[in-house]
């Protein structure tokens, strides 16, 4: 019964209805559901789930509070280890982390830890009255300064951990809103931006000084940060560099990188154009290339922008799709088509330079490649054309090269990842890194785990004799 883990018990909006707007799809479980689910937890003495959590939330403890009806205490427990519970409760792949190792999953359904996390965080946000910000703390005026670069999941976590350790933390963000991928990448219907705003606000309440519109490497260099008195720097700039297919016609009008498309939709609110001044154009027939979470997000946004037909084109099979199963299911429910074992080879335009057709090549699965997944092999002579007027390329992102370019002392892997030691320190002493900038595109929670570990290592580094 192992696939029970993927059964969704959380109430959600009907597909027909939800594709008409950008409002949240999953609605959260009821109090009764939460308490009942929490009571199923057998409170293991040596809980595996905690080991499965990159930020080591005391999972049995917060679940116990829910079981007892102490929702406020449950939220508090969560926030001891995780400053972003309402976000994690929505976008973490719990099925691959804590829930995967839950002992109850061996014989039946594991505890829906993610649902409970979301429940407790949402409860605190919507139900709690009185003092919402108990954590604000006084810091000695001479607290050492720490710089955190990038306000995505890694940076937010690192900043909050450092603030809790008593440092004066500056958090630098290049865009005009904080949150990194949480703001520009993940759509409103999966993660409402109001929730991001409130969790960032919570981190600011810990004393973190958020500075928007600062592109480290350009606005201020790493060296200048040290010159300004910062003792240590964390780089969490993410995997922002979009990968393109490198096929002819990719520059035609109507071909987006997923990043461009999602930034227009999520960050710039292009779906409210012209009230919001940045436009986004969507055709009638949309092809999204790739099958990760980003591809599902792009496909589902396309539907909501009014596309008639949206197709995911992927060169492997459903089994290899990197997206979360629940997101694939939701995409299917909403009417997204899947064309598997297909790879685009060329894009053709009309006389005005707009995309008109895409040529695809059929594939079959061959031997496993380095990722362990069976490699797609082209079937010769199988080319055919499909009609499309928008193409969204969602075949991955690589680490943002801007900071290593700006400071060549930072060593990187060939594919762009910043090289760090086992403490997360880069090739510049005192400069740490983590999240997608080190790993390439990974998950929100692994980035948070990195941010947390880096904060511990930075604290130790600052206090070590040099």
């Amino acid at each position: 019964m192992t696939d029970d883990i993927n059964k969704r018990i959380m109430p959600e909006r009907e597909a027909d209805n939800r594709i008409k707007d950008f409002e949240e799809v999953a609605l959260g479980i009821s109090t009764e559901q939460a308490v009942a689910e929490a009571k199923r937890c057998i409170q293991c003495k040596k809980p595996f789930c905690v080991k499965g959590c990159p930020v080591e939330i005391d999972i049995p403890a917060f679940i116990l509070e829910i079981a007892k009806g102490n929702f406020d205490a449950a939220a508090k427990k969560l926030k001891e280890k995780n400053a972003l519970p309402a976000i994690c409760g929505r976008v973490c792949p719990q099925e691959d982390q804590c829930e995967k190792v839950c002992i109850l999953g061996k014989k039946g359904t594991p505890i829906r830890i993610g649902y409970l996390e979301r429940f407790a965080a949402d409860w605190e946000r919507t139900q709690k009255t009185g003092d919402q910000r108990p954590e604000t703390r006084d810091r000695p005026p001479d607290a050492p300064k720490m710089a955190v670069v990038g306000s995505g999941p890694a940076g937010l976590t690192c900043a909050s951990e450092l603030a809790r350790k008593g440092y004066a933390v500056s958090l630098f963000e290049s865009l005009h809103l904080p949150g990194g991928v949480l703001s520009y990448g993940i759509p409103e219907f999966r993660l409402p931006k109001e929730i991001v705003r409130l969790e960032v606000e919570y981190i600011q309440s810990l004393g973190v000084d958020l500075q928007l519109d600062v592109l480290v490497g350009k606005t201020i260099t790493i060296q200048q940060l040290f010159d300004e008195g910062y003792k240590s720097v964390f780089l969490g700039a993410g995997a922002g560099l979009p990968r393109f297919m490198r096929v002819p016609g990719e520059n035609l009008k109507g071909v987006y990188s997923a990043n461009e498309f999602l930034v227009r939709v999520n960050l710039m609110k292009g779906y409210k154009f012209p009230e919001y001044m940045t436009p986004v154009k969507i055709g009638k027939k949309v092809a999204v290339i790739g099958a990760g979470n980003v591809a599902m997000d792009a496909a589902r946004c396309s539907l909501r922008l009014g596309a008639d037909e949206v197709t995911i084109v992927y060169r492997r099979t459903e089994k290899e799709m990197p997206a979360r199963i629940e997101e694939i299911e939701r995409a299917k429910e909403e009417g997204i088509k899947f064309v598997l074992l297909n790879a685009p080879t060329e894009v053709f335009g009309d006389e005005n330079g707009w995309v008109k057709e895409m040529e695809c090549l059929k594939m079959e699965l061959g031997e496993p490649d380095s990722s362990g997944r069976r490699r797609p092999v082209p079937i010769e002579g199988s080319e055919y054309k499909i009609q499309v007027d928008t193409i969204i390329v969602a075949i991955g992102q690589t680490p943002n090269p801007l900071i290593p370019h700006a400071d060549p002392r930072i060593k990187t892997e060939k594919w762009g990842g910043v090289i760090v030691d086992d403490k997360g320190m880069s090739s510049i002493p005192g400069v740490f890194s983590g999240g997608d900038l080190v790993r390439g595109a990974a998950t929100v929670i692994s980035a948070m785990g990195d941010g947390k570990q880096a904060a511990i290592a930075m604290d130790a580094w600052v206090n070590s004799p040099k």
Partner: protein
Amino acid sequence: MPKLLHKEKLADNITLIKVAAPRIAKNAQPGQFVVLRVSDKGERVPLTIAETDPAKGEVTIIFQKVGATTKVLDTMKVGDELVNLLGPLGAPAHIKKLGTVVVIGGGVGIAEILPAIKAYRAVGNKVITIIGARCTDLLILKDKIEKESDELHIITDDGSCGRKGFVSDILKEMIEGNVKMDLVFAVGPVPMMEVISNITKPLNLKTIVSLNPIMLDATGMCGVCRVIVGGHTKFGCVDGPEFDGHLVDFVDLKNRLSTYKTEEKQAEEHVCKILGVKI
């Protein structure tokens, strides 16, 4: 939020502003630009940095009213604040002493040539400036450009300021007249930069163009600014804005720039209605 410290009208459509932005002022180099927003719902618009004063922490921007954002920007007063200002962005220009540099600005480009003229001259080049504009586009700006250039040629497509014709006419005459030139720097409408590059290419006369592809984040994250240079995809916001004019695929650039033509008009109409200004 960055405050407007100074505002000056240089011509009918061209305005100079000084903004408080100490970090940008400290690190900016010639050729770089900023991205700004004028409202919470605004678009991110790239504008060339005209000048900086690191001691005072000031950044000077000269802009032409050509779209929704610049129209709003032009209504702002000293003391008002920009919603966002990010920079310095893009790769710094390679300014070297080469001998004679011809700086050509046309249309939207004339607001941007002043920093280039100054930078090339500062390292000891002789700078010959050619501008293509209507008289009303020039006014005070003309004096500033004249003061900084060794030689200035003005040409207008309607003959409103003396000679009638195109900037390329003057360049061709200079070539025919065997004027010694070591570098051409051109900024303006894409067809103009294309024509200039096509003239200088057979002569192997090095030509730098400053491109204005559509931008969004302007930090290398979205790829909307991609341009083909020498057969390779480059990002205008990080690899540019300056590129070798002989290698740029102008056809591709023109096509991509036309993506949001209709929407750009719509946005402009929208803000103009709100502001009560006429288009």
